[in-house]
């Protein structure tokens, strides 16, 4: 049995424990006076007893096991972050939202009852425990947090003391020997028996008193559930031990059932007016046998991957967190209906589950709520890009540094609603080159850059920056950015802004060198708000280059600059490239691209329509411009073979042609008065116009 299959089964166990909790809380109103149902049921009391026996012990075994799984996969820091998100946040937020609702529903239900003694008993609790605090059903999250903290402390200490691993090996051997017999529950129940064996509280609801009304950790819960948690942790150290549980599932269950029956029926064991140690012993033992039996049965029967189980496993956490106010509300609402419990109980359960499943499906699963609770969200309909998922990316094959592109889009797609901004685009930025990204407005240039900067995530395809995800801050430590339409902190001076930007990088240029390189020294002391539009661009450029980036993104850098400032910026860019920096440039000034770019990528309607060196792109349009003075009319020349267009422009004849040589020859032959003859190859602007016209 693979460890994957085992984990699927354990996921199912956890879900089963949580969902059983909903059933358990639903039974409560049928035998307790909160609120007093007309329809009391001894059967449901027994059902409560049975679920209560194993539910939390089982849950904490699985929780301990998964805790070690997370720490093994993600390290201590990752573990803390993950648990903070999935346990601590639901505890705090759940408390502020769910507990008032729960208590409200409870009080409403009770005040509807006619019996004033019950009202008094519930609204004025007689015993207020130390540190009284209504944790309600969220107590299990609180205890999980306690266990996590304790565990991290013990683990930290153990790693130091037991560096050689002798102790843990001994522990592992002990666990194995124990589990290979039917006697493990005897030992595991011993600690909690020591605490509760002679405690009358076990008589109230049976089992470990639920620690739901105090922030002071309660000894029985700490010991009882702590044992289960630690046991789960130890199990994960040797996952193959689960196979022992799998083989013995039936035996464990039979033992659990027998002990439960004994607790309920055998005179001398059956609970009398005072709790007997015999009862406590049978009960606590049965908890462990039941738990082993249920985990074993799950491993035996629910090992494969099943879509329904997967869905329920994901949903169960939310269902359990949110169910209590609803269950209490429905119990109160149905309290006075004179129906048989066999109708009311399933009805309340059905309504609860329907409402909760619907809320999960629409409000939790596809939203950030689901991401917090389950660590991921399932978007409706859309497939997600690989970098969006939490699953670790496959490590890219090591490539020689020089060959590895600095930034890549691999078949990237991105749409906003119905409009497709990028439609399967592949672009790579190589070392030491300036790549000009050209295209008409709305072609997808900004989207492409936003993907590289991690500001947007692709719907499909991959985005890589320095061979990694752009969402990692380490990738972005090697880039500099100059964006369009950004207003920087208005009250800081240019020098301060550069200092601020420099602080983000491991090895920035000095402030003075940056001022020098970017020609911003005269602006250094001025506040950003006081600068002209062009000066603001210069300040932004300085902030982009101060980190000594290996890759620089410049989005329309020279808009608003005067000629001198633009020349200065071009010089600075050339110097950076000479020093090995790569640049991605978008611009509307094609002469800027022509002057600076090693390579050009032309985008239109979200696709790459041309790419290559400036010369290559220019040559995709094989045409020339001929201009001259002379007597020939444009209309006449337009009819010549090879002429695409001919016009008169201020005494000059301007001819566009695909075959300059023949046209010039014919021109000279036809008109002796031709003067000021000029032939010019198509430039990037021509190519650009032609290409984008074709794409449209």
């Amino acid at each position, binding site marked *: 049995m693979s460890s994957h299959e085992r984990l699927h089964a354990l996921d199912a166990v956890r879900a089963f424990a949580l969902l059983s909790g909903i059933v358990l809380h639903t039974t409560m109103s049928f035998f307790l006076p909160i609120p007093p149902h007309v329809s009391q049921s001894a059967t449901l009391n027994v059902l409560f007893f049975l679920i209560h026996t194993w539910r939390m012990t089982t849950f904490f075994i699985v929780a301990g096991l998964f805790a070690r799984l997370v720490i093994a996969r993600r390290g201590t820091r990752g573990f803390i972050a993950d648990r903070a998100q999935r346990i601590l946040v639901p505890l705090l937020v759940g408390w502020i*939202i769910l507990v008032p609702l729960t208590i409200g529903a409870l009080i409403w239900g009770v005040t509807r009852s006619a019996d004033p003694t019950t009202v008094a008993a519930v609204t004025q609790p007689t015993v207020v425990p130390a540190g009284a605090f209504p944790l309600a059903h969220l107590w299990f999250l609180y205890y999980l947090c306690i266990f996590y903290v304790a565990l991290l402390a013990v683990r930290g200490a153990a790693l130091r003391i037991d560096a050689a691993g002798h102790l843990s090996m001994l522990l592992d051997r002990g666990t194995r020997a124990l589990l290979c017999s039917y006697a493990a529950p005897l030992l595991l129940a011993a600690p909690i028996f020591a605490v509760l064996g002679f405690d009358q509280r076990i008589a109230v609801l049976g089992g470990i008193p639920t620690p739901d009304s105090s922030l002071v950790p309660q000894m029985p819960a700490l010991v009882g559930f702590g044992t289960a948690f630690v046991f789960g942790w130890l199990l994960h150290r040797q996952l193959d031990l689960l196979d022992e549980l799998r083989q013995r599932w039936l035996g464990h269950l039979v033992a659990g059932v027998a002990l439960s029956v004994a607790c309920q029926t055998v005179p001398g064991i059956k609970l009398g007016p005072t709790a007997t140690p015999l009862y406590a012993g049978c009960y606590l033992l049965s908890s462990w046998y039941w738990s082993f039996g249920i985990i074993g049965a799950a491993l035996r029967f629910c090992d494969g991957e099943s879509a329904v189980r997967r869905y329920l496993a994901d949903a169960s956490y939310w269902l359990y967190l949110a169910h209590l106010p609803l269950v209490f509300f429905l119990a109160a609402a149905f309290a006075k209906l004179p129906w048989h419990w066999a109708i009311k109980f399933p009805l309340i359960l059905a309504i609860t589950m329907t409402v909760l499943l619907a809320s999960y499906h629409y409000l939790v699963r596809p939203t*950030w709520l689901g991401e917090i609770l389950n660590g991921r969200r399932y978007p409706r309909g859309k497939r997600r890009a690989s970098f969006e998922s939490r699953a670790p990316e496959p490590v890219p094959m090591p490539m020689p540094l020089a060959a590895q592109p600095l930034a890549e889009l691999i078949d990237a797609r991105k749409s906003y609603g119905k409009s497709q901004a990028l439609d399967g685009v592949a672009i790579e930025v190589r070392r030491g080159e300036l790549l000009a990204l050209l295209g008409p407005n709305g072609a997808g240039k900004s989207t492409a850059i936003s993907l590289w900067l991690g500001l947007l995530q692709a719907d499909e395809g991959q985005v890589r920056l320095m061979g990694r995800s752009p969402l990692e801050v380490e990738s972005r430590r090697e880039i500099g950015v100059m964006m369009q339409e*950004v207003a920087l902190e208005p009250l800081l001076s240019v020098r301060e802004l550069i200092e601020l930007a420099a602080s*983000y990088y491991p090895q920035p240029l000095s402030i003075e060198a940056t001022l020098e390189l970017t020609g911003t020294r005269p602006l250094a002391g001025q506040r950003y708000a006081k600068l002209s539009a062009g000066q603001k661009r210069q300040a932004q450029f300085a902030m982009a280059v101060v980190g000594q980036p290996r890759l620089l993104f410049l989005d329309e850098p020279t808009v608003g600059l005067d000629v001198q400032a633009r020349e200065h910026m071009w010089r600075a860019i050339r110097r950076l490239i000479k020093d090995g920096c790569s640049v991605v440039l978008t611009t509307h000034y094609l002469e800027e691209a022509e002057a600076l770019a090693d390579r050009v990528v032309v985008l239109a309607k979200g696709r790459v329509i041309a790419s290559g060196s400036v010369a290559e792109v220019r040559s995709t349009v094989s045409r020339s411009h001929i201009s001259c003075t002379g007597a020939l009319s444009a209309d006449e020349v337009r009819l010549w073979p090879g002429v695409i267009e001919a016009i008169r422009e201020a005494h000059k004849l301007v001819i566009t042609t695909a075959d300059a040589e023949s046209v010039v020859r014919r021109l000279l032959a036809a008109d002796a008065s031709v003067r000021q003859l000029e032939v010019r190859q198509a430039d990037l602007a021509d190519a650009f116009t032609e290409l984008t016209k074709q794409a449209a």
Partner: protein
Amino acid sequence: MNTLATTLVPDAAGPLMPLRRLLRAYLIESRFQFIQALRAPAFAFPFLLMPVPLYLFFGVLMAAGSKEIAANPVLMNYSFSGWCSMAVMGPAIFGIGIGLAMDRDANLLKLKRAMPLPPGSYLIAKMLMSLAFAAISVGLVTIAALAAGKLTLSPGGLLAMDAVLILGAIPFCAIGLFIGAFASASAAPAYANLIYLPGIWLSGMFFPLPKFMQPWSVIWPAFHLNMTALAAGGMKVGVSPVITSAVLVSISVLFGGLAIRRLARTG
């Protein structure tokens, strides 16, 4: 040989930021955040300096003739706590709420997200700025109150109360973040006022509320801050400080969490 080796080994981990530089990055971000707040007189003046004259006028001068207070001087501690709570809330809700909304509108946040900012440094800087403002204004009101000789708190009680008040800025920072993360720059001041003004009056910090309104004071975060601070100072309050501080922590987590989710996803 060396060159070859460096060429063939991919730098999978990326450039390492030394711990000192990383801490320095947080420090500089916070420092400039604070400098900016100080350079904006429309922000610094009302929130740093106004609480003192307001407290002296309403809390000391106006109360001077009251028989009730003469009979029961402990009441002065209550008004002190109320004015300090107000002083703490302002920079947190307005400073962060409006500042963040403006930065979002100006695409500054987008640029910061594209730059290699250490995780959370922008938000931490904003929060530290608010805490610093809270510390300064609470400190000033404390000095004024001591100078006026109006407090009956023990020195330890006063310190505990001030500490709670200053840390009590955190839930309001979270509310500010929430406003700033969701509202546009033009709407943010309106939302901030909507929380701030009713919060300080309807939480019963400055005067006893009419009876029918009293149960509703619990819906304002300011009420919980004030009660926690009073309890920390050793004053008698009607609610358990465990619950009021739990509410404050929950507010911080809830609003802060929602804001961070929102900021992580959009600009």
